């Protein structure tokens, strides 16, 4: 399984970014390969509008099986993500990447 998490940093100890569209980084953990890939999303800061669809476009490139985030995608992003067969878990903000992943494994995160 490939897990994407919206993240404020590049480490397992970084906090989840509550925002989907304007997340600083996308932390991608590939469970089978046990490998981590960090996608820098900070260019989205320069977008006055359309951050949701810009970040959603990245999801089509990453093609994760699971997305873990905070507030959940906004209206535009939700529309943009609907063609992806991906489970979305929300309310993971105030957790670190590691804590959020562990909660997800235990089935303790809220699914959208």
């Amino acid at each position, binding site marked *: 399984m490939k897990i994407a998490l919206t993240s404020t940093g590049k480490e397992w100890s970084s906090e989840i970014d509550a925002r989907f569209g304007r997340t600083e980084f996308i932390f991608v953990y590939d469970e089978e390969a046990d490998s981590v890939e960090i996608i820098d999303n900070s260019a989205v800061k320069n*977008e006055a*509008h*359309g*951050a949701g*669809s*810009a970040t*959603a*476009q990245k999801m*089509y490139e990453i093609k994760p099986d699971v997305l873990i985030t905070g507030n959940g995608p906004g209206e*535009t992003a939700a*529309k*943009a993500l*609907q*063609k*992806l067969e991906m489970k979305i878990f929300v309310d993971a903000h105030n957790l670190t990447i590691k804590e959020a992943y562990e909660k997800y494994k235990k089935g303790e995160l809220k699914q959208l």
Partner: protein
Amino acid sequence: MKIAIASGKGGTGKTLISTNLTKYLSEKRSVILADIDVEEPNTNLFIKGKPINTTKQFRMVPQWYKDKCILCGECQANCKFNAIMQMIDVINVFEELCHGCYACSGLCPTTALPMVEYPTGETVEYQSDSLVLIESRLNIGEEQAVPLINKTHKIVDEKYENREIKIYDSPPGTSCPVIAATEDVDFVILVTEPTAFGLNDLKLAVETMRFLDKEFAVIINRYGMGNDDVEKYCQQENIDLIAKIPFDVEIAKYYSKGELIYNKLDSFKNSLKEIENYLNRIIKN
């Protein structure tokens, strides 16, 4: 003569001045008032005119034709506004994000994205005695004010060119809608209030008008409250202070009932006279 009534801060009295000034001036001259604060137009609460014309307004957005599309990705790659997106085998257009630049449509190798009309709002023209009021209103949920503001300017330019004085009740702030509202006018009146917020946002508005190379002057509304920092700032910066409208609960009472004040309070009428005299001077020059 085109005169925009603008402000940095919202709620300083743009509509109070636009409506009363145009009604007052229209007793002697041919005047049109255009409400181009399209996100929340409200001049027709005060100037009760008879609707004489309604125009549905549109902007152009691409529409996807599946049968023609080869899913090459050119449209998504060239959209600067993230308004068009390839979702596996579907091209999705986010109309609310589209700025109508035609890049996707023009670059599409199979003409699968022709531009079509997308409703954005409506413009209503009202007649009130000799005064014409034209008011544009964005549809609920529509984010882009600029195309509608530009179209309203166009109606005024084409249909009401002969009006001696054209007053534009503009949006507040310093962003795109304000630029669209003021860039073609001859003169800008910045309305402010004598408070710290009023001063801060006036400075931003002054900076914007100087950047646009506009002639402008200031009206202080609710004069008597707050402090004299706005006056000091105008002196320092050599900005003309056209009028100081007193802070008066009577004005607020009439305004809250949707009534015009120009013929009701002498102190207010004096302020309008000062504005008229000032405008006469700049029209002569």
